[in-house]
């Protein structure tokens, strides 16, 4: 193999492939990045057998070939290369990499040991949507997924594609985030995707821009954006029937400035954050939201801000971190909070500021905490 690549493109490609797959490998060959130079393009592939990442960049090829190089070492090297073209030359056993005046010799690994990458089948149905819309959808919803491996189905985000819409839902059993976006080219299917893989896909979509193609198949889902592809295995098991959790009525509606509430909450939560399970209590009434937190070891805090309140006044307590995540997800200047009573789940939704403002179809359901 002999080729010449542009430094930034080469560094980005190697770093994306290694980062996307992560460091948890169970076979030595999986710690490698497979570089394949053919037809004017260099393809970098990495996998941990759960997630497979592939990226292709244009290069000048003098001699096509395939090599398997240690991923982390290669990523560390190219990240520190000077701003000059990168030359790769060698065979499967040993590759010489030069950039500017720097020369490295890297031992290759057995190419045959690298597994065949999971990839979408050619005739699989594909859905297409805007990459920035996809990235935003994932960032709003995936935050509600659990990080506890004890209940694997809750570590995933359910993607439900039907009727021209892609609906993403995630829950850790304390909160639920769900939102739909329209496909430009629709596809049907349901997939429970590991939240971490989906967040990597969203990050790549945000970086690349344009469109993202979603390929839903039995046991796996693939995301294609520009010259990158990420295929991940799906989580087995049944995702909870979250639609049954969404309340169909509420007693009190609150519309409040999101940034103001978020800043007040962060200030008040400082006394709550030091101790697990310390809630922040919100009193809604008389055109005001009063926030209050008490920590027996540290002290207490209180702050009030104006709000439009329609319905009976009430008090409700939340885990401040979960409430902040919900406020952050909505994104609009104003936020709508729908409440039934102090022990029933609250619904957070973006609130349109004017008739012209387009808002996301996001629902963030949050279970309150008990206060003794």
């Amino acid at each position: 193999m002999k080729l010449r690549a542009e430094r930034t493109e080469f560094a980005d490609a190697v770093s994306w492939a290694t980062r996307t797959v992560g460091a948890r490998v169970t076979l030595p060959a999986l710690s490698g990045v497979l570089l394949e130079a053919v037809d004017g393009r260099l393809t970098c592939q990495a996998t941990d057998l759960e997630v497979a990442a592939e990226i292709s960049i244009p290069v000048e090829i003098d001699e096509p070939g395939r090599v398997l190089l240690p991923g982390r070492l290669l990523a560390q090297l190219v990240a520190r290369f000077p701003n000059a073209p990168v030359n790769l030359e060698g065979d499967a056993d040993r590759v010489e990499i030069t950039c500017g005046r720097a020369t490295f010799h890297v031992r290759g690994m057995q190419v045959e040991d690298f597994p065949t990458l999971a990839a979408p089948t050619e005739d699989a149905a594909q859905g297409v949507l805007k990459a920035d819309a996809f990235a935003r959808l994932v960032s709003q919803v995936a935050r509600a997924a659990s990080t506890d491996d004890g209940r694997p189905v809750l570590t995933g985000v359910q993607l439900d594609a039907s009727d021209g819409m892609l609906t993403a839902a995630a829950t850790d059993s304390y909160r639920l985030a769900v939102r739909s976006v329209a496909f430009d080219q629709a596809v049907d299917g349901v997939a429970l995707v590991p939240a971490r893989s989906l967040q990597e896909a969203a990050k790549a979509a945000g970086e690349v821009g344009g469109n993202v193609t979603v390929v839903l198949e039995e046991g796996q889902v693939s995301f294609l954006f520009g010259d990158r592809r990420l295929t991940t295995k799906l989580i087995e098991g049944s995702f909870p029937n979250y639609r049954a959790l969404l309340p169909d009525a509420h007693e009190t509606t609150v519309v409040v400035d999101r940034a103001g509430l978020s800043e007040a909450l962060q200030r008040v939560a400082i006394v709550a954050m030091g101790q697990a399970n310390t809630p922040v209590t919100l009193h809604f009434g008389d055109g005001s939201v009063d926030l209050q937190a008490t920590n027996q070891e540290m002290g207490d805090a209180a702050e009030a801000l104006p709000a439009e309140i329609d319905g009976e006044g009430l008090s409700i307590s939340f885990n401040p971190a979960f409430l902040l995540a919900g406020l952050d997800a909505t994104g609009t200047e104003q936020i709508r909070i729908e409440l039934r009573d102090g022990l029933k789940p609250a619904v957070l939704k973006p609130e349109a500021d004017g008739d012209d403002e387009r808002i996301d179809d996001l629902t963030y359901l949050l279970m309150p905490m008990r206060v003794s």
Partner: protein
Amino acid sequence: MLPEPVTPSVGRGRAGSVRPMRMLIARCSAVYDGRLSSTLTSAVRLVMVKADGCVAIHADVGAYKPLNWMNAPNHLVEDGDTWEVTNPKGERLTITFEQVLDELSYELDTERGLTLDGVERELQLLLADPPTHLEPGLKCVQREFRTDLGPVDLLCRDVDGGAVAVEIKRIGEIDGVEQLTRYLERLQRDPMLAPVRGVLAATTIKPQARVLAESRGIGWVEVDLGVLRGEEEPHPRLF
């Protein structure tokens, strides 16, 4: 007034001798010189010399960590208002006393270590009646079911009638998986029981124990003691 020097050297007691633990409440300053250098300016503090020779200077905050300490074996030389504690690693702690407010000296009992069995016993009793927190339909056949290698905490039957051996720990670690593996190997020899599934139950299960259990086909379940006791969770769930 400093107390009269009692022991010129600590931590090297003769066999059979019982050394008291000394506690001084004193205004003192200290200088440590060893892996790094540090200084404690003058303040009222608690200085402890434990029976094994450990020397610790405590402030009036924090549960367990002294401001400065020297692990045994140490050599303590008391010279007037100054104590000099040295050890074989070349570390040196110099304590200068300005005023000793009080001094106590007591012989403590031999330490037998923390007893945590209470939690495991309570977990065993709560999980046995009934063990549906572990999996739906599970019924307990016997607690402390004997094997040649010791008793397994619970022997249960699942909805299909299959035998399930449950080992209960406060914290599920690799040792717990190894222990259950040994029990399972013995239980599989019993034709009345085989095949026997294994389940490790604990309030927290370490990631390494989860991996090892899964690689051996052993199930694992984290249980919440508060929920088992019927206490209300501070943070209720949506489902």
